[in-house]
């Protein structure tokens, strides 16, 4: 029995929280991210939302957990990656970020960042000035996530955009995705290794970990060792 127990599915996961205010498109972004990872990157995904009774203005967040194995975490306590599009979200959720997790913020709205390692991109500003549409902020955020962390591929995100958005909105959102991607990639490249090396590596999501290797020694923090 012990052997069976050890062979149980304990594949590592990546938990991502997208947070901000109602109306910023976080639920849609979460859904697009989940679709990209599940359908086009072929991972197993659980995506969930949390929002208040009001349509706009209240706290809103969307969570995506992805893995090559089974996902049974319908809600997570801590996250590997936290995306914050508002100051309030950043203040309330930073505590839920895992040790050495990645914080991505929209620097147009988040003036005070709790860590020097935050990935700061003026997403709303870019959306308004370069895409001509404030509504593309959420897609820029996905682009930054993709460019900086690589948990999801750009190709998959593009395909998910294609299948989820109205045709007339597609053009500007694809542009937004590329803009975000470039911004994220650029930050990842210019950040000195020394500063980055402490952060989590998510390459395991792209290729299976070698058999028998314990993922807990592979860039996963202690918190998640308990969570499996």
């Amino acid at each position: 029995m012990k052997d069976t127990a050890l062979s149980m599915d304990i594949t590592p996961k990546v938990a991502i929280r997208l947070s901000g205010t109602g109306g910023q498109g976080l639920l849609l972004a979460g859904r697009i991210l989940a679709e990209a990872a599940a359908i086009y990157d072929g991972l197993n995904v659980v995506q969930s939302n949390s929002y208040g009774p009001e349509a706009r203005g209240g706290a809103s967040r969307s969570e995506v957990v992805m893995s090559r194995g089974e996902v049974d975490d319908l809600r997570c306590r801590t996250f590997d990656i936290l995306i914050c599009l508002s100051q309030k979200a950043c203040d309330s959720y930073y505590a839920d970020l895992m040790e050495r997790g990645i914080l991505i913020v929209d620097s147009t709205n988040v003036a005070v960042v709790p860590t020097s390692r935050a990935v700061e991109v003026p997403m709303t500003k870019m959306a308004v000035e370069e895409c001509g549409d404030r509504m593309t902020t959420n897609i820029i955020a996905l682009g930054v996530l993709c460019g900086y962390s690589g948990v999801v591929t750009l190709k998959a995100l593009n395909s998910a955009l294609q299948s989820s958005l109205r045709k007339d909105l597609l053009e500007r959102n694809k542009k937004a995705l590329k803009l975000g991607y470039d911004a994220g990639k650029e930050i990842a490249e210019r950040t000195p290794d020394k500063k980055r090396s402490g952060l989590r590596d998510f390459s395991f999501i792209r290729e299976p970990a070698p058999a028998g290797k314990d993922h807990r020694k592979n860039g996963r923090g202690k918190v998640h060792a308990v969570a499996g």
Partner: protein
Amino acid sequence: MAVPKPGEPVLLSGNEAMAYGALAAGARFYAGYPITPSTEIAEVMATELPRVGGKFIQMEDEIASLGAVIGASLCGLKSYTATSGPGFSLMQEHIGYAAMAEVPCVIIDVMRGGPSTGLPTKTSQSDVMQAKYGSHGDYPSIALTPSSVLECFTLTVRAFNLSEKYRAPVILLSDEIVGHMREKVVLPDPSQLEVINRAKPTVPPEWYEHYQDSVTGMSPMANFGEGYRFHVTGLTHDVYGFPTERREEIAALMEKFKNKEIHNTRDLTMVEEYFLADAKVCIFAYGSVARSAKQAVKILRRNGVRAGMLRPQIVWPFPKLPVENMLEKVSHVLVPEMNVGQLRKEVERLSCTDRAKVQGLNVLDSSFITAEQIVDRVREIRARHRHVGEYVNG
């Protein structure tokens, strides 16, 4: 969004999967009143039902919704409605009516925080007892609890099958988390699905008894307009549906209701056992929480604790036999629930000789019960009992 093709991976929410499951089971009538967190089911039905020749009606409230569903079902359409706690309370009257008049129908309750208007966007499992005892009188209750998006599809098909087979209202107890979460699923091919339709009378119309007495509780059903005459009422009735006060007729009817549960236990028992064979600690969980329980079992096993999970997919009738078997084997049972312990009490009842071994983990603040919380509680229980020497080796 079009109906997803079977056999291809799609990202669906639990609510959407339930709506597609209903379509696959042959549902052609939906009457409802939108309510968070169940509204997506109505949305899908409003788009999809007209395309397959079905009818969607938004009613003025939940009482009328179930009334319309019962009417449509009597005319031969597989019918259902979806709601949440407040609407489920309103529907209780008609659930009793459907049970009394033996009309097949499915009621989906996507549970949210209560009582009253409660927490519209937050999860809960506090309608479990209402699904059993919500309406007055002794009537057969059947309720299913899906815990994944795929199960939202398959158990919805099962719910329709059970309601058609037993001519009874069947309740699908989902919750906000299961309803709103999205997962990758591959929907089964329609040819792989077992779809049961109500049994038709084989006798000529003049011999037909709409409420025929039967040991199994099952009896054939003619639809309105097919030439078979019967009367439908909420009053206690004879085999033709006309009110009666004759004791033997009353007794026969009540017996038939009882028999639906008693004589079909095997068909109405559906549980998943996960690492239960050699388990010393059993986590008894259902719905969304069962996913955390499964994860907790993995963590505990990895740490050398012989944990297992028993998960009822049909909670009503309560799976007496599997629970009794489990209680005989394990030292401790933990029942994590997002309510005050509604099903824990059922488990306790079956372990009357040693009630102390059944414990609850109850969360009432609208948050979800995570695997870590379950693991912590199991460790706590183990530590406490090891201390007094009751707990031996794993």
